[in-house]
């Protein structure tokens, strides 16, 4: 079985995003960029399935700017076998899902494992959309993935707890935080990754129209919460809470 893992280059999760003063977006100039954390978990899960013998090949794919090559090299350094870069800027989840659907058609992976959401646009859509476009079942927000013959059992993090579903493969899985802890790429593997195959494509190669459906009219800072007061001791805190009507 082949596993396809889409990855996205996003602002590093440790960087505090700043809204541009002209309100057109978030300032990404000279900001550290990394692989979306949920996608790292997806790569890790694919590699673990391969190491267990459940998968034969792991293919990483990214739809993004030229520099998304770095993100793909990270996936290759972690252990993915080869990579595909579809060069396109600011493609919405629907467009990404359409390109991925074409790649799924070509590559015929038994599983596609994606991050549940990207930490830049927080859309949480691509996996579900890809599942719809390919007519495949979806196991979203996964905290456990088990391949069982021609099915995959996915334990999902849902409101109130956990839910396990069984999906016929081929299937789409999106990762939640507690699925695994991604490995770090070792230096020798980083060097090795440089010579692994990385194919370059464009949306036109797949005949997909990625023109946006949403227009961002403006981007603003959220209302700022200012720091309040500090109280000296528990008695003062209890008094404050009582003022707010919080009592036992």
């Amino acid at each position, binding site marked *: 079985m082949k596993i396809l893992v889409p990855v996205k280059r996003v602002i590093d999760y440790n960087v505090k995003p700043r809204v541009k003063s002209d309100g057109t977006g978030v300032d990404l100039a000279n900001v550290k960029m990394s692989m979306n954390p949920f996608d790292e978990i997806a790569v890790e899960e694919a590699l673990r399935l391969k190491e267990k013998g459940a998968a034969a090949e792991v293919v990483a794919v990214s739809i993004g700017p030229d520099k998304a090559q770095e993100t793909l090299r990270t996936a290759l350094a972690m252990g993915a076998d080869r990579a595909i870069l579809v060069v396109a800027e600011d493609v919405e989840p629907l467009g990404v899902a359409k390109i991925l659907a074409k790649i799924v058609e070509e590559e015929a992976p038994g599983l596609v494992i994606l991050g549940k959401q990207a930490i830049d646009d927080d859309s949480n859509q691509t996996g579900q959309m890809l599942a719809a476009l390919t007519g495949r079942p979806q196991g979203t927000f996964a905290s456990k993935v088990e391949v069982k013959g021609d099915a995959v059992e996915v334990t999902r*993090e849902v409101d109130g707890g956990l839910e*396990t579903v069984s999906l016929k493969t081929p299937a789409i899985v999106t990762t939640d935080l507690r699925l695994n802890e991604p490995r770090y790429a070792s230096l020798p593997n980083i060097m090795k990754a440089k010579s692994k195959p990385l194919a370059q494509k464009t949306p036109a190669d797949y005949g997909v129209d990625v023109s946006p459906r*949403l227009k961002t009219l403006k*981007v603003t800072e959220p209302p700022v919460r200012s720091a309040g007061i500090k109280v000296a001791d528990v008695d003062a805190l209890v008094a404050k809470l009582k003022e707010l009507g919080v009592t*036992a």
Partner: protein
Amino acid sequence: MSVLVWVEHDNASVKDATLAAVTAAGKLGEVHALVAGSGCGAAADAAAKIAGVGKVLVADDAAYGHALAENVAPLVAGLMSNYDAFVAPATSNGKNIAPRVAALLDVMQISDILSVESADTFTRPIYAGNAIATVQSSDAKKVITVRGTAFAKADATGGSASVEAVSGSGDAGLSSFVSAEIAKQERPELTSAKIIVSGGRALKDADTFASTILPLADKLGAGVGASRAAVDAGYVPNDYQVGQTGKIVAPEVYIAVGISGAIQHLAGMKDSKVIVAINKDEDAPIFQVADIGLVGDLYTVVPELVSKL
């Protein structure tokens, strides 16, 4: 404009998140509600009483019992020939199903809206709520998920909508429900609790979390939350997590105990009316958003607080 709202329910009653979605949908046009489930007649009757709902569609079929997206999304997409917008609360079901519906309709979804500016323009948080985007959709139909804390809840009573049975193609044969472990919470649900007591990594382990946080929550009749660090460390189950990727909460009072205040945690609770922080590190970022802060050792402060409240 006519709007179809996804009703979040447990077959017997309607979940609060639905009520906020009804309010958001009401800003767009006439609201009809879809109750999909198995043996969900009581939930449909409850949905018919929600103020502002004009009609309830019930799809009662074993295939819809666990809200599997593979079965439910084609049902919704089929019904959408009569509607201009599909609105779902941003619950785990809503987030699972709505994008599948959107792709079936060739629509780009607008996730987690905070406000309705006009029939095609909405605001939504991006970058963990560090920025708010105003977006305009050019799609003929809209597919939207709604952040529950951003809209007032519609009245659960007062309406008298008609109830009409609908059917879809049923089981797509792609997926099946295996099991669920739903944590039994005798405390208020996080998304509707008036007071929340949340614990962080400083609580050391599951026993310490339970013996420190729970007495305070019990005393106040509060819901219990946790930071991602505390959940990752296994102190409490995943559904306690408050943050960018966990639950988004906005209670009257949020008491953060031993939580430093990482960006992704603040994203989940900074709309709380009053934030109280207890932390021994006076430079912890949580104090930058807290209305009332107390610098101190939580192991002495919290028990003292419990005894004096």
